[in-house]
């Protein structure tokens, strides 16, 4: 899911195209290392979801106003991308990208105990569509087919 193979000797171009695609997707490049083929990018967005507010209201009424569940407020979506030549002649390159997100929660309350805001948790993005979308854009950008491995 995270990996695709490209038939090209030009690793550098593949990396810069990847950077461009990530930028198109709204990411900001945080770090790049051409020598080892690493890119790190991130974007910050709101993480508010209607369903969580609905759930919060439901439990609020169910517990007669004693439980206020914290909801997700803010998230940082990050990507770590590594390119690597697959054979010794370096005519094939492999691109592997990992998306993950860090979410910050708001405040809440259970009975008399106040839950301060700022609790954070992290999760890997496991939705294949996100990866497909990225690789579709990347193969368009380099005019090459992205082969599954």
């Amino acid at each position, binding site marked *: 899911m995270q990996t695709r193979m490209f038939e090209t000797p030009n690793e550098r171009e593949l990396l810069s195209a990847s950077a461009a695609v990530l930028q198109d997707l709204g990411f900001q490049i945080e*770090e790049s*290392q051409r*020598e*080892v*083929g*690493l890119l*790190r990018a991130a974007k910050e967005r709101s993480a508010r979801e209607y369903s969580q507010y609905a759930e919060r209201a439901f439990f609020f009424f169910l517990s007669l106003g004693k439980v206020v569940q914290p909801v997700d407020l803010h998230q940082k979506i*990050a990507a*770590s991308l*590594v390119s*690597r*030549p697959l054979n010794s002649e370096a005519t094939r390159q492999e691109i*592997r990208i*990992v998306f*993950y997100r860090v979410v910050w929660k708001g405040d809440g309350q259970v009975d008399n105990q106040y839950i301060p805001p700022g609790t954070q*948790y*992290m*999760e890997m993005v496991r939705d294949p569509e996100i990866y497909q979308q990225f690789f579709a854009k990347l193969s368009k950008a380099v005019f090459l087919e992205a082969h599954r491995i």
Partner: protein
Amino acid sequence: MQTTILYAGVLLAGTLFLHGCAAPEVKQDLFAPTDAQMKIRSLQTRTFDLTDRNAAIRGAIASLQDLGFIIERANEGLGLVTAARFAEPNYYDVVTVTVTVRHDSPKKMSIRANAIYNNKPIDDPKVYQNFFAALQRALFLSQESNPSP
């Protein structure tokens, strides 16, 4: 009677106050190497028959990715790779690894992995054995069992 108690109280407060002012004594062996350090270092280090440093760094990156780590930082010049992941299924715990690659001699490469669980260094040999097994798979190489001195 009461003045005695008062006097004693003032004296006690004074001693406590003065004690707070005294600078803690610096231990002389603060930077001295210990046996445990040397032991951990030998656990963390393996020597490989390799000449290409860049390939070794890329191999380390690939094996870390295979183990589910997110590459956070890499530096070709220093031969450094830093990666992290959650200690699944405990999503609140994080494992961080730093891998250093350096030339031992022109034909030998010494690779050191440094793993930290939350904020505690991992000194279990098994963990490092597993990592080096994965690294070896990524490098397809024969490995010397004896670490560098």
